[in-house]
């Protein structure tokens, strides 16, 4: 059945709210592993020795198994303890709203992240950075500059400031907010220092 409109985060919240109540341990230890095993058998998903798949039929069966897994299982909300459900048509309709291309950054430092396929000659976007690894406050901008100055790097991903003004950047404390803002400031500074002020961060 054709869906009325694509699902967004607000509709998702409503569906979580009106969804079926399930215990978190049941979800983790029963629902997810059981359904994954069922999908594996139903779609005959067995990987060969190759790390990258070359069997086109297996690749497409895996996609359908993933769709079926999402529709059969739904999504779990850990705070509400409830499950959102979605139909296959709604999944496909939702995928149509996703962009095939994104412009990242500004000015001459802007790059275009476009849909590419497995044997495409275009390279992927390279997002350089510590990817959430912990970094000392005193070297943070310099470490980020070491990524920004690499010509093969297109955009930046930040590390995590270990402290801010000497205070631990602990989750759910005011210092976490200050640390987050300091990270952004330091990463932007690194872009300027490397001569790439418009780089996407």
């Amino acid at each position, binding site marked *: 059945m054709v869906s009325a409109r694509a699902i*967004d*985060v607000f509709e998702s919240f409503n569906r979580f709210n009106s969804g079926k109540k399930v215990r978190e341990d049941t979800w983790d230890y029963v629902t997810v592993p059981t359904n994954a095993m069922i999908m594996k058998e139903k779609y005959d998903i067995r990987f060969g020795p190759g*790390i990258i798949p070359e069997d086109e039929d297996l*690749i497409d069966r895996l996609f359908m198994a993933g769709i079926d897994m999402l529709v059969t299982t739904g*999504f779990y909300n850990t705070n509400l303890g409830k499950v959102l459900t979605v139909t296959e048509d709604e999944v496909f309709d939702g995928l149509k709203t996703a962009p095939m*291309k994104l412009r990242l950054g500004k000015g001459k430092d802007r790059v275009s992240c476009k849909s590419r396929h497995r044997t495409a000659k275009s*390279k992927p*976007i390279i997002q350089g950075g510590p990817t959430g*690894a912990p970094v000392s406050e005193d070297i943070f901008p310099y470490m980020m500059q070491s990524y920004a100055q690499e010509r093969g790097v297109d955009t930046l991903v930040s590390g995590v400031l270990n402290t801010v003004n000497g205070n631990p950047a602990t989750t759910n404390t005011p210092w976490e907010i200050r640390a987050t803002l300091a990270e952004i400031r330091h990463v932007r500074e690194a872009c300027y220092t490397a001569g790439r002020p418009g780089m996407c961060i």
Partner: protein
Amino acid sequence: MDLAGLNMLAGWTANGDTIMIEQMPIFGGYTGGIEETAISAVATTLGSFALFSGNFHLDGPIHIRWGITTSRETLQIAAHTAAAIDNNTDLLIANQYYPMAGPCTEMCLLETACQAINDTASGRELLSGSAAAKGVVQDKTTGMEARIMGEAARTAAGMKVSDVNEIVDKLVSNYEKNYNDAPEGKTFRECYDVLTVKPTAEYLEVYEKALATLRAAGLDIKH
């Protein structure tokens, strides 16, 4: 998904921001084996676009025993998941990097390069990294790991999947035997002159050695 996540998404959606949704499936966790983890990764990737208005998705299959994304099993999950989505959609998909070895070691560079060509030949649009030393040791990441990630990806783009598969297998076979005794590597201060932000001669030598190993494996990285 929790309510904090939904609330952040609501703010970004209302503001018209570009939204990246991240999810790291754990091989050996609740989903179990390689195939089951890949099925769940495809499902959650699709859900991030269809249910939560994501604009691109950041994956990162991780090994429950080793805590890395560069193991044979997690590379296989990542490649199959990406290929399945790549074959059937034009969605923008990314992967993140958690090698086992630390900076200024050949193993770290080979792990990073291996995942980069794996991701490139399985159709990913964006590579994000690299969090060397499993991303858990303070100050053990540097720009040199991102350099090899970019050079390897650029070289692999356009190659036949079967050729890339052979190289990936050679590289994983080279480093996976070191898992019990992986080199810890050096900190940023030991890898770079912090004031000039230039890598040390030692790291440049290690880098050259890694390039030679990659070329010997069949990845013809040019300067």
